[in-house]
Structures are given as C-alpha cells and as structure tokens.
C-alpha cells in the first residue's frame, strides 16, 4: 500500500488542501462563540451573525479557488494519509457545496428572524453539515466517507428539527433520524462486507482487490453493493428510498428543505459517483440497478407531484424526479454521461435553491406554503413571480434556461454513449413533459386575477431583505446564463470525472435486453 504509507507527517500541502475546511470550521466555532456572547438577540446582532457566516463561507470559497488556481495541471494526489484525494472532482464538488451553502445562508435569514429567536446555531449547523459534505466529496477512504456522511446527516437531523417547538418540525426531524439511522446501518453493513472482501478501507486498494471479482456474480456481492447504494439512494432521495423526503421537506423549516434538496444531495452524488467510478466500475449489474431506480424515481416523483397541494411537498417530489433524470447518466457510466450529471448538479443548485428562496419569501409574505395561497401573487410582487417562473421553467427544462441545457447534454450523452438506452431518454423526456404540468400550474395560479385572501393581506410595499434579494438575483442570473455559457462548466465537469477513471476502461453493461 504505497499511497497510504508514503508519508507519516501531515505536510504543508495537506494543510493547504483542507484550508477551505479549516476556514469553515473556524467560522463555525466563531459563530457559536458569538451566539453565546450576544444575549439580547436584537435584529442588529442577528444580522451581524449572518454577515459573519457569509464572510467565512466566502472566505472558504476564495481559499478553495486560490488553491485551485495554484495548480493548473491538476495532478491528482492523495492527502492526509490517503484519507482524501485532491483531484479536480473534489475541487468542483466542494466549490458547488460552498456556493450552495452561501446561498442557503443568505436566503434563510429572513425566515429565521421571523420564526425563531436563536439564529446563530442555525448557521453553525449548516456550516457543519457542509463541512461533512466537503469531506465526503474528497473522501478516498471508507472511514472518511463514513465521517463525512455522518457529519452531514446528524447535523441535518438537528436542522430539520430546528423549530423544535413546532410539532411538525420535530416530527420531521425524528422521522429523518430514524430513516437515516437505518440507512446508515445498512450502508455500514455493506461497507463492512467491502472491507471483508478487500481487507482495506482505502479506495485504491479496495479497487485493486475487488478487480479480482470483476464479472463474478454472487448473491453476497450483489447484496453488498445494493446495501451500499440503497443507503446512498436514500440520501439522494431516489424512489423507492425517497419516502422520507416529502415528509421531512414539508415539516422542516423551509431553508433546511432547500439545503437538503441541494447541498446534501450534491454531496451524496459526489460520493456515489466516486464510489462507482473508483471502486465498482466493473460491477456487472449496476447499469440495470440504476435503470430500475431511474425509471421508478422519475415516474413516481412526477406523478405524485401532480397531486400535491403544499409547495414544499411538491418540490420534494420534484427533486425525486430530478434525481431520477440524473441517474440516467450513471446508467451509461461514460465520462460524458457522468460529467453531465455534475453539470446538471451545478444548474440544479441555482434553480432549486432559487425556487426555495421564492417559497421562503412567499411564506414570509403569505404565512402559508399552500399553492392555492399564491393565487394572484403577480399583482403584489410581479418581480418575485417572474423569478419564480424562471426557476420553475428551468426545472421543467424549457430553453434558454440552464435546466434545459443540463437535460439536453445529459440525454445527448446517454444516447451517444449507448444508443440502447434511447428508450430511457424517451421515458425521461416524457416525464419532463408531465412535470411541466405541475410547474406551470403554479405559474398559472400566480398570474390569475382574484387573489387569495393571503395575497390580499400583503402590504403594497415592503422592502426585500438584501441578503434574500441578492441571493435571488444571483440565482436568476445563474439560471439564465449557466446554460448559454455552458462550455467552461461542461468542460470542468467532464474533465473532473475523467480523472476519477484511473486508467481502467469503463465496462459498459449491455442494458436490459429483455
């Protein structure tokens, strides 16, 4: 095991690599201390807490970009005794997580001010959760995967129950914990079998050891892989492991739903992609596995979303469907296909967070998350309705929003990589046609006259909180421009995935012949 034993000390390089994480950790602790020091919890102090968190998040992002700019050639190498791997993929995914965190912090402040007294803990918790996600997306060792995943999960449980006096929030939190706990246990059982087969926790060693089993089809092997990926599918909220998501999204505070639907999911995709590309590339059944899950996820997500009355629940099912679309890239497993997932995640980050930001704002204005209560909103807040419409159209995949380009490149990559999966693309596109029905229904309600009572009660002029406003502006701009200027982002996405495939041809499965 040359990689793990090469260094016995943590050097400057390692420290620089985890500099973004260090900054985030310092920020987290600083926020905790500041929360304890500010007793009065005035508006002023609360706003200060948000600003400090934003500074640390942006500082962390700046450090990441600085680190990235230092090494243009981007030779992948392992860090921290082989626990982490510094490659393009880790940089891209961590940058996305930090961007998602920044937007989450910005959009949550107005919500928190309205609903709770204690604000600082929230920022500390989301930063902690993102920290877990960052470790997860750079992990090169099973233990690191576990630590990252649990840091992300446990903080998420607490976050879901942040409004703990609200029964719904507490219930969401508890359900998430029980579901997540069992998910973790199953995941770990799978990992212990992986360890048993390979005798190591390090990815590259496991990959070497498992290569001996390539093409072997044994029930234990299959069970092991399915246990590992079922738990990840739970994190990705892929049907039929999605059932926690609607309940938790509805019950949890809206910013937390936003965070779970984007940052948590991005981190889960990062580890899924890494495990697939590094450890299990030759596993015989994974194309079939992902095909089944993709079809189930798209169909269930979209069809159940049609009947939803609560916008958070609706968006929960919509994320289930989106995870299903993204899985089509895993099915073909080519670097173009998987790279398109990374690009999809980039666009998804902005459009979904943007949509949730609108839900937060609407919730503040109307005090309700019912779609019906949005009726006639255009008369009171035309700009906000426009922004929400752009996000929804992007989620539905209408040009020239980024959502369209993400879908186009993904499905194009699937067909070009393996035309046997054209039927899967057809299913996905049919589903996205269905999805337009419920997205556009929201837009229709917002623009018709005869406003709901809640809308009537909105005062004519209240100024938008600057953090929420700027986060919305950034999201709108990104949603409109990420697609039109996609080249560079696509390039990073595919290159980062190419680096994961370590001189080993990807075995493309034959597809569902029957």
């Amino acid at each position, binding site marked *: 095991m040359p990689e793990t034993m090469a260094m016995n000390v943590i050097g400057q390089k390692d420290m620089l690599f985890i500099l973004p994480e260090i900054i985030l950790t310092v920020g987290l602790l600083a926020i905790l201390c500041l929360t304890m020091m500010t007793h009065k919890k005035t508006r002023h102090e609360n706003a200060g807490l948000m600003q400090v968190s934003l500074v640390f998040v942006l500082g962390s992002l700046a450090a990441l970009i600085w680190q990235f700019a230092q090494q243009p050639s981007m030779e992948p190498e392992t860090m921290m005794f082989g626990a982490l791997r510094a490659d393009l993929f880790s940089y891209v995914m961590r940058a996305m997580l930090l961007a998602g965190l920044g937007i989450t912090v910005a959009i949550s402040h107005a919500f928190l001010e309205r609903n709770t007294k204690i604000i600082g803990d929230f920022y500390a918790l989301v930063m902690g959760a993102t920290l877990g996600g960052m470790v997860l997306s750079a992990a090169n060792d099973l*233990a690191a995967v576990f630590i990252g995943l649990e840091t992300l999960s446990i903080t998420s449980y607490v976050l879901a129950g942040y409004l*703990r006096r609200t029964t719904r929030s507490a219930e969401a*939190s508890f359900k998430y914990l*029980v579901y997540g706990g069992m998910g973790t246990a199953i995941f770990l059982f799978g990992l212990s079998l992986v360890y048993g087969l390979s005798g190591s926790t390090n990815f590259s060693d496991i990959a070497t050891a498992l290569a001996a089993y390539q093409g072997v089809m044994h029930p234990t092997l299959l069970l092991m892989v399915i246990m590992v990926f079922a738990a990840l599918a739970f994190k990705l909220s892929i049907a039929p492991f999605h059932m926690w998501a609607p309940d938790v999204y509805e019950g949890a505070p809206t910013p937390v739903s936003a965070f779970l639907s984007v940052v948590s999911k991005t981190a889960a995709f990062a580890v899924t992609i890494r495990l697939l590309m590094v450890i299990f590339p030759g596993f015989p059944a994974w194309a079939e596995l992902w095909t089944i899950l993709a079809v189930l996820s798209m169909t269930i997500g979209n069809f159940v979303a049609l009947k939803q009355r609560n916008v958070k629940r609706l968006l929960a099912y919509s994320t289930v469907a989106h995870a299903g679309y993204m899985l089509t890239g895993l099915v073909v497993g080519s670097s173009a296909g998987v790279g398109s997932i990374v690009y999809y995640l980039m666009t998804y980050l902005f459009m979904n967070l943007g949509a949730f930001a609108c839900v937060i704002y609407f919730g503040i204005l109307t005090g309700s998350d019912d779609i019906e209560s949005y009726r006639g909103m255009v008369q009171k807040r035309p700009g906000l309705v426009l922004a929400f419409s752009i996000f929804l159209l992007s989620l539905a995949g209408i040009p020239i929003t980024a959502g369209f380009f993400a879908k186009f490149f993904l499905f194009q990559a699937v067909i070009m990589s393996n035309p046997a999966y054209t039927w899967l693309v057809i299913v996905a596109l049919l589903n996205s046609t269905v999805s337009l029905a419920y997205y556009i229904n929201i837009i229709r309600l917002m623009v018709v006259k005869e406003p709901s009572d809640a809308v009537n009660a909105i005062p004519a002029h209240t100024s938008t909180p600057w953090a929420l406003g700027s986060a919305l502006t950034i999201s709108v701009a990104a949603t409109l421009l990420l697609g039109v200027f996609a080249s560079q982002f696509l390039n990073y996405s595919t290159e980062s995935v190419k680096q994961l495939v370590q001189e080993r041809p990807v075995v493309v499965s034959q597809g569902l012949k029957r």
Partner: protein
Amino acid sequence: MFEVGLYHYITLAAVLFSIGLYGVLSSRNAIRVLMCIELMLNAVNINLVAFNNFINIEDLGGQVFSIFILTVSAAEASVGLAILIALYRSRKSVDMERFNLLKW
C-alpha cells in the same frame, strides 16, 4: 477442538443485524427503535473487527473504523434522544404510531 472462526463472527453479526432490523421495523416505542438502530451498528462493528482480525491483521483499518462508528453512533443516539424529548413535549407520547402528522 472447537475453534471460533470468522464465520461464527459473521453469523453473529448477521443475526444481531437482523434482530436490530426487526426491532426498528416493529417496535412501537420510539426509544426502543433508537436502541435497535444501535444494535444494527454494533453488528457492523463485530463484522469489521472480525474481518480485521482474520484478513488483514497488520493494517488496523477495520478496528479504527469501528472506533469511529462507536463515537459517531454515540453522537447520533444523543441527538436522537434530544429530538425525541422535543417531540415528546408536544405530543406527550413516544408511540411511533402517533408520529404521522406529515403524510401524503
């Protein structure tokens, strides 16, 4: 002479895991559900330590991993109990059947 081999450990772990799983799925008491999750995690620990011992004794990766799991599961349990207390305050119950406000 009878020797306790790898398979015995794995079987023990599998049985323990299944008992935990059954408990999670069937208990009506929320605390018992949390305990059963711990049971499942301990099954994993047995697996890891056994594999470490029988397959790769030089590298202590498996044992270190199990220490991690112990630590993290303690954190998870404490968070779980805290949430349960919050939930109990509003529902006055720890019956799993009654936590169904959020549905459809």
